[in-house]
């Protein structure tokens, strides 16, 4: 965990509501960890999963869901913002020999950095990435370069017609352990389908580092803070 000043180097629109913001000046962060970004005019910092990282350069992928993320879309390269980096536990990458990455919507973001991490160690993961519609699909090309990716859309406008979990149920995908991030309903069906994996959760947070108990969830092993003991939890542990 570090408090750092990050400099925006790019802020690009990916789809009608999704953006990628890239920073320089970030200390090394783990796949599955997150950062809290302090935005001018907002009291609380906003949490974002680490979407990509190398040599001090951090990328976060975000979707406009409220005033904070709306304000982020107008930030320009060169702007410096205060951030808490390296928050949360991160993915336990040592657990998989044949990793499966399951993402839903913007939930694919932290999985991209995870896929790169596997790729850097000579492991080519399988990725099932679900989106609502073709216009919501992000990172397809980038994933394809380092993984075997299947895209699914709820309306069938791109790839498999259905969601990521229904794809897994109807096709034989070879893996020994999965890593997932996405909407709660997706994670719920996924953990019911198979518990040999871990899921990254999101929550409205206060501090992001374990002080306020604002994001505490009840798990099968008692209350846990999404920001501190999480955001990544064993699939068998979460109650969704």
């Amino acid at each position: 965990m570090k408090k750092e000043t990050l400099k925006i180097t790019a802020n690009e629109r990916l789809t009608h509501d999704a953006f990628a913001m890239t920073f320089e000046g970030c200390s090394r962060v783990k796949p599955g960890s997150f950062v809290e970004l302090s935005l001018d005019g907002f009291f609380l910092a906003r949490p974002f999963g680490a979407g990509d990282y190398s040599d001090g350069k951090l990328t976060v992928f975000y979707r406009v869901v409220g005033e904070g993320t709306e304000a982020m879309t107008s930030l320009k390269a060169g702007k410096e913002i205060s951030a808490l980096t390296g928050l949360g536990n991160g993915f336990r990458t040592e657990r998989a020999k044949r990793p499966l990455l399951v993402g839903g919507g913007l939930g694919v973001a932290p999985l991209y950095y995870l896929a790169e991490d596997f790729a850097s160690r000579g492991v080519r993961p399988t990725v099932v990435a679900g989106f609502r519609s073709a216009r919501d699909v992000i990172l397809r090309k980038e994933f394809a370069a380092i993984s075997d990716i299947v895209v699914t859309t709820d309306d069938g406008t791109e790839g498999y017609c259905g969601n990521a979990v229904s794809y897994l149920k109807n096709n034989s995908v070879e893996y020994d352990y999965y890593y997932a991030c996405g909407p709660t309903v997706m994670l719920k069906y996924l953990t019911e389908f198979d518990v040999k994996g871990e899921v990254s959760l999101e929550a409205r947070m206060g501090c992001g580092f374990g002080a306020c108990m604002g994001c505490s969830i009840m798990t099968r092993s008692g209350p846990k803070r999404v920001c501190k003991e999480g955001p990544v939890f064993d699939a068998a542990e979460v109650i969704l």
Partner: protein
Amino acid sequence: MNTFCGNKDTRTELFGYTLKNPVIPASGTFGFGYEFADWYDIDILGSISLKGTTLEARYGNPLPRIADCPAGLINAIGLENPGVEKVVSRELVKLDKVYKGKVIANVGGHSFEEYTRTAAGFNRADKVFALELNISCPNVKGGGLAFGTDPKVVEELVAAVKEASVKPVIVKLSPNVTDIAALAKAAERGGADGISLINTLLGMRIDLRTARPIISVKRGGYSGKGVFPVAVNMVYAVSEAVALPVIGMGGVSSARDVVEMMYAGASAVMVGTANLVDPYACKNIIEELPALMEELGIDKLTDIIGRAHNA
């Protein structure tokens, strides 16, 4: 003693216990303390007010528990804590490894019996030099705030806790009342050793897209920078009304705020919500204090307690 800048005396005292400076992280914003040792050496803190503790473990309210506001935040945690037994046997032991000073245990409850039994649970905890009785938490059904708004109940509850506890008892007051001084006087009559204020102001935010309150239990407690003037006014009023030491809190985010609170009558100052947006908030305040004292011509911080009342 802190001597960051010349020989400024930042010490203050509460019930015979000397704090190296008046800065105390407020209950509920600092966990059980050790979480912050990952950011800096927390031994610099005057003391620490621990996360509100109840008799049994509590999970608290469903999520969302937090809503952002322009100059602060609303929280409705619902007193999540592991229960007094684990706080004493586990949390205080962990804290002792990273903090040498003594701390304030914050006691919550739903009934007289729960308050007194929880308070008694700290009797043999040497790490604790005082209790802070939370009779003002707006986020617990049938408890907390319900106890903090009726002077007669406050007086009786404080007397019952004093009976059960061997520690000095600080009563934490709610600002959600018509006459906070009357509540402070009631606490004093009940035998309180000190008063801390203000707890959070009741607040609500509504999501414009769904037209529903953001907080799961609808309302919560508003705190942060925006409440500071409200807090200064109430600290001033309460320190006029009672002869007890007062601990001021509410929106304190800088060394200047600490001095202002002490001018209003505070013997020590709690820093709360500021910790959640900057983990270094207390450290920065403590380090800024000597230079600010120099600027204001203050040699000894205890000299300024209540100075605004003589103006």
